[in-house]
């Protein structure tokens, strides 16, 4: 085994930069790293939130496009929160976290779009009774 240069006994009990990381967690570092992350997160979030409120309460952009713009801003802000507050990264130590997140997003997507889709069809097909009677030959 010595030629493989691998020593499984080199176990480190504290979280360091050689282990997988849980979400919201990172290798032990000085507090400055965490504070700069929080500052960045707050800065981006404030920008995106203010933008969303301004767009929704003024006529800066074309009216029918406002909902799309709001959705984009919301998704961007969720991303900011994930990265700067929950410390989800694309690094190899985060593979498990990202996979779980991806599955969660898939389920959320299925539930929301599936519900809206199916219920819109039901609404369409379930005409009020008086209209249904009129349509009968």
């Amino acid at each position, binding site marked *: 085994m010595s030629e493989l240069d691998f020593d499984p006994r*080199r176990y480190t009990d504290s979280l360091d930069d050689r282990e997988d990381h849980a979400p919201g967690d990172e290798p032990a570092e000085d507090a400055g790293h965490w504070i700069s992350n929080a500052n960045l997160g707050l800065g981006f979030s404030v920008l995106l*939130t203010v933008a969303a409120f301004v767009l929704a309460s003024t006529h800066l952009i074309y009216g029918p496009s406002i909902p799309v713009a709001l959705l984009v801003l919301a998704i961007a802000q969720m991303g900011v929160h994930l990265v700067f507050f929950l410390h989800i990264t694309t690094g190899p130590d985060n593979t498990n976290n990202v996979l779980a997140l991806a599955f969660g997003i898939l389920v959320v997507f299925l539930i929301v779009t599936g519900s809206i889709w199916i219920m819109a069809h039901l609404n369409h097909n379930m005409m009020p009774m008086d209209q249904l009677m009129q349509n009968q030959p």
Partner: protein
Amino acid sequence: MTDTSLPAARETIRRVREDPYRLGHRPHGPREPIEGTGQGVTGPASKRVIVGYGFWIFLLSDIVMFSCFFAAFAVQRGATAGGPGIRDLVEMPRVALETAALLLSSYTCGLSFAATNARNLLWTQVFLLVTGLLGLAFVGMELQEFISLASRGITPQRSGFVTSFFGLVGLHGLHVTIAGLWLLTMMAQVQVKGFRPEIVHRLICFNLFWHALDIVWIGIFTIVYLMGAIA
């Protein structure tokens, strides 16, 4: 290990070494895999990672539950039964204040964990307290909103739309309330027990929970309130 180790184990280790990305094996540099990365060959991950990851799974399932309420809201949005619509429910200044309170509380929560990592008891407690006060302000404003709606006769039994509104927003408020109780518990535990590993694990989980609540609130203020205001 000795020479009696299984050939299969050596094969595994060779495979690990030859994985160019060393997925899960940590070393970004020229270092070797160590025990405790939770990737099969090297044994279970440390408790800190397992606790955080397990709580992450719970959070995702919690978000899935919220998505059901979001879906119900989206479906029931037009089911006003001749009663108040979404525009009648939205008060922009209050929503802006609520959002500011929750966003700032997320920030102070992150700072409290920075202090936890620096093992600074005083600042951990100070930032946790600020976080709790901001959360309390949020819950207070939401209660005030619900009471003012109820005083105008807008209660959940009015229509399917109002039911889904109170269900979604109320569920989030309930989460923040419970998180506030958890926060008080954590402040007491940190004070009495100090930064023992299991206490730090709980603080990690609390941080995750609080930030996840803010993520859900982003969805609520966008889809319920801002889109309601322009409906």
